[in-house]
Each structure stands twice: as C-alpha cells, then as structure tokens.
C-alpha cells in the first residue's frame, strides 16, 4: 500500500472478460472442444465427497478420501482487448454445487450432446432453461455415429423452437468456432428481443427419458 493509486478504469479497459460454459454428459467431448480452440490451462477445484458416488466414473484408488482435487476444463481465447473464457461444467451429478458458481455472469452456454446418449444432456438443458441463460445445443458427431438431422435432436430434447441446434465436430477448430459464433448470435438475438426468445417462463415439463428416442 502507499503506492501510486491504480488506474482501475484504464486497466479494466485492457481486458474485458466473458465467460461461456460448455456443458454436457461425461465423455461427450467437452475437454476436446475447449482445447481445440483455446489456450487451455489447469484449474483445480476442491471436491468434497459428501455422498457416495455410484454409477459414475471409476473411483478406484480415491475411495475413502474426504476430498480430492479435480481439474476443470478451462480455456481462454484472447481477441484483442476481449478475453473469452470457456469453462467445462463437470459432467457428474455430484458437481452440481459448482454450476451456480460457473454460470453466474456467463454470456451463454453450449450444451454438447452425443446422439448415442442423448439423455445425458437433459440435466444441462433443464438447468439453463431454469436459469434463463441463453444456450444452444451442439451435437458432437463422432466418427462412425449416425448423422442425425439437428431437427430430430431438437424434437427429442423437447427444445423451444428458437434454440439453435447444430451439428459439430469437437475435434475441428473451424467447427467449434462456428458453434461459438452460433451461440453469441443467439445471445445477441435473445438480448435484442428483450428476453422473449429465452426460455419459456416457468419450469418446463419434466423431460421423460422416452422423449429422447431418436428415429431409428
């Protein structure tokens, strides 16, 4: 202290940070998506095992620990004075406590979906609808997986018609770039429409797993 006062306003102009969330089920390609387009950095967070975790990824070797350190997907894209931060939301149920923290002040979210396990992205879709955070659904087209019409995915997920649904390849930088552009365009439309195009008011009807059946 006692140094020259920091010119806060000028410094703030140096960096205008934005935050975009990348959500979706475990193993859907969030890490791939974040790392293909951004400068990725290790960000650790503490996880408390308050519940027994079953039915999720392998916990062999960490059983009995009260807390463990987990890595979050975290990437930064610097564009002049703008800095776009991508945060992968943890895919497992036991990380729900982090979602409010991550989504606070976020510009919007990309829900990454895998057509083989479409139900995995229900929690994310429900969450962003409730939070009224603009989001799009990007279907990660894995090699060998059938190519679906995004419209079928929209129907299967029971999405509002204004929510963009696109196909992408999370391994391709140009594809991921287009996903982010689609999201920001959607945020812009949502903002200029005075929020009309955001999620419908009130909680949506609960998604039924059966609704996710894609046409064979």
């Amino acid at each position, binding site marked *: 202290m006692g140094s020259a006062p920091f010119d806060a306003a000028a410094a703030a102009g140096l960096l205008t940070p934005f935050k975009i969330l990348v959500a979706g089920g475990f193993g859907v390609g969030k890490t791939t998506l974040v790392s293909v387009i951004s400068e990725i950095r290790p*960000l*650790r967070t503490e996880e408390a095992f308050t519940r027994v975790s079953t039915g999720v990824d392998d916990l062999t070797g960490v059983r009995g620990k009260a807390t463990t350190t987990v890595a979050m997907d975290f990437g930064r894209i610097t564009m002049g004075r703008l800095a*776009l931060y991508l945060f992968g939301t943890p895919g497992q149920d036991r990380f729900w406590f982090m979602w409010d923290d991550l989504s606070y002040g976020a510009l919007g979210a990309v829900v990454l979906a895998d057509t083989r396990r479409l139900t995995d992205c229900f929690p994310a879709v429900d969450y962003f609808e409730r939070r009224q955070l603009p989001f799009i659904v990007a279907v990660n087209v894995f090699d060998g997986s059938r190519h679906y019409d995004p419209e079928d995915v929209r129907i299967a997920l029971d999405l509002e018609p204004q929510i963009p649904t696109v196909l992408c390849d999370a391994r391709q930088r140009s594809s991921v770039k287009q996903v982010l552009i689609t999201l920001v365009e959607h945020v812009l439309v949502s903002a200029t429409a005075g929020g009309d195009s955001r999620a419908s008011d009130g909680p949506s009807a609960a998604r039924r797993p059966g609704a996710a059946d894609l046409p064979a």
Partner: protein
Amino acid sequence: MPPHGRWVDREAGPVVRPYALTGGRTDPVGDTVLDLIAVVAACGPAPVPTDSPGLSPEHRKLIGLCQLPATVADVAADTALPLGVVRVLLADLIQQGRITVLPRRAAASQASPDLLKEVLDGLRSL
C-alpha cells in the same frame, strides 16, 4: 491432463491439505465470493517484505501474480492451488487493501449489443 480429468496422488498438488493454507477457512471473509472472471489487481508493488504482518507466503505470491490485472481463474491456474483456496486468500488481501477488484465494463449477462457484436467479430476473425 490425466484421464477422467482428475488429479490424484502427486499430481493432486502439495501434500498439505489445501485449506491448511487458509487456516482451515473455506469461506472468504466478508461473504464476497469472487466471480471466476472478476479482474483483480495488486494495489502495491511486489515483492512484499517477508515480515509483513498477516501475510503468508501464498498471500505474497498472489500479490506478485496480480501486478498486472488478471482474472481470478487465471490467478488460480498460475498458483496450482484449488480455486476455493485462492478465493479465500484473495478475499483476505482485498480486505487488507492490498488487492482490488476492478470494475467490469459490463456484466456479461447484460452485455450490450455493441459488445456482443465485438465478440462476434473477434470469433469470426479467429
């Protein structure tokens, strides 16, 4: 990054339990939880004298990392300490007047169309 996005054993970081560095505190002072992309900056130069009262080595390290404005997430990534610990330590420094949170140009959730167009232009030119 390890498979399953998890660090265990040595990769998990120091053997010291992370919250030992905060004296066991898990909530920041003043109930202010810093946003991940809040921009923080040191109010004074580094290095801070080692005999400064109320400052741990980690506090001093954070002051060093905040000589240029940086987001909380970037600072946490630089320390290899868990985010929760960094937030507690930064809150201490904010309370002591050693670190300040810079005002944001706009809350991202209320970003103006002009700012959004700027983001779009930036993405398109990637």
